[in-house]
């Protein structure tokens, strides 16, 4: 059984059909990158996986359990799925430590004593153990994004979703975030990420998914697809994003 099974999912906003029958499996330990033009439905697909959006038909299974906004155990499901957004979305009024430990404490994953240790251990993984007492506003974009990743890690997720997490960063800050993600990949985290970082898609991912007009247009081994795109759409997309 795959960790995530997306089966013929359709999603529309009013009359606009954004996902037109998407099917995709994510095995445990896989690093899946989703690429595709703006508006092709990449973010929507990610947001359906943790039921931030409701789907109109089809089914999404997470560890065999059908996911929806009305499911029993919605919160328990979300505690297992970390998601990082382009805009960091740290809580501005909390220190970095509080940002990272809020959810583990409120969901009973740790007590107050354990929280400090937990914060240190996840912040160490993203190289920010010295920022415990800082506020988000005092950090660079790259640092904030690493805290956002640490905040998810503190929940020991089974799956991590990333939606263009380096797109809002100054170019010189992209590397530090990608490095953290590569390390997570190396440690066996299951990851699904939407990205424009073609090097990451080619070299780190275990599967590449090209979305086009609300469909999975092509998917497969990243190196093979980059070398041999089967459709003109992917070919032209790779041409535009060569690097």
């Amino acid at each position, binding site marked *: 059984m795959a960790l995530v099974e997306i089966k013929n999912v359709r999603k529309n906003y009013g009359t606009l059909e954004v996902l037109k029958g998407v099917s995709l499996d994510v095995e445990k330990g896989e690093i899946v990158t989703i690429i595709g033009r703006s508006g092709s439905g990449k973010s929507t697909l990610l947001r359906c996986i*943790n039921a*931030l959006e409701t789907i109109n038909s089809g089914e999404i299974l997470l560890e065999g359990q059908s996911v929806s906004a009305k499911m029993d155990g919605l*919160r*328990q*499901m*979300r*505690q297992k*799925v*970390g*998601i990082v*957004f382009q*805009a960091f*979305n*740290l*809580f*501005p*009024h*909390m220190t970095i430590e509080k940002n990272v430990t*809020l*959810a583990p404490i*409120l*969901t009973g994953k740790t007590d107050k004593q354990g929280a400090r240790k937990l914060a240190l251990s996840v912040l160490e993984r993203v190289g920010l153990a010295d920022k415990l007492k800082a*506020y988000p*506003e*005092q950090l660079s974009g790259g640092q904030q994004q690493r805290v956002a990743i640490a*905040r*998810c890690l503190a*929940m020991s997720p089974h799956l991590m979703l990333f939606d263009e997490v380096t797109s809002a960063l100054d170019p010189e800050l992209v590397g530090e975030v990608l490095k953290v993600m590569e390390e997570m990949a190396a440690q066996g985290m299951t990851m699904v990420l939407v990205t424009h970082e073609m090097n990451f898609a080619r070299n780190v991912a275990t599967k590449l998914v090209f979305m086009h007009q609300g469909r999975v247009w092509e998917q497969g081994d990243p190196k093979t697809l980059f070398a041999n795109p089967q459709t003109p759409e992917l070919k032209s997309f790779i041409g535009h994003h060569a690097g």
Partner: protein
Amino acid sequence: MPNFNFRPLWRYSDQFIDGVLTTLLLTVSATMIGLIIGIIGAIVLRGGPKPARIAVRTYIEIIRNTPALLQIFIIFFVPPTIGLKFSPIQASIVALSIYFGAYASEILRSGLNSIPASQIEAGLCLGLTRWQVLSRIVLPPAIRNIYPSITSQFVLLLLGTSIASQVSADELFHAAGFIDSRTYRSFEVYALTCGIYFTLVVLFKIAFALVGRAAFRWPTRR
């Protein structure tokens, strides 16, 4: 050279003090109850079922577009006709709470709206409950954003408690009228009363500023 003499007022210091205490009682009670009304009102306005939203909106519009004096009269004189009797102070607290609640609903709603939906989403994605997201993630920055408007609304309420004198609640302004009628020192009485209101407002503003500085320590952009 007018001949001012504050000395005759000295005998009435107890009345002044009682007046101040009643004014504070009215202000603080109406603020507490009004804030609770405001929180409920704001939450309903943002996400309640449509009939509830319409009801809250109607309440706010009626209160904000009619004289507060009239509202206090209605609360004081109408319930007795159905056998429900309020003392002047009770009626004043009820009326002023309803009054403050309408303004607080609007202010709190704008505070909640000032927090981007992405913050709520981030909280829900961590597996928190709606209530946890509201209380831990949304409210603190929202309250910071509306702190100045809540402070000035509070000041308006404090000054507005003087209308309770019209249903003979013996708050500060009512006490002033009483002392004036005994001493015939109108200028002195009302000058002193003015000074007391002013001092109260300044003290509260200082207190609010101190509390605000202690509570809102996190750095913000701009």
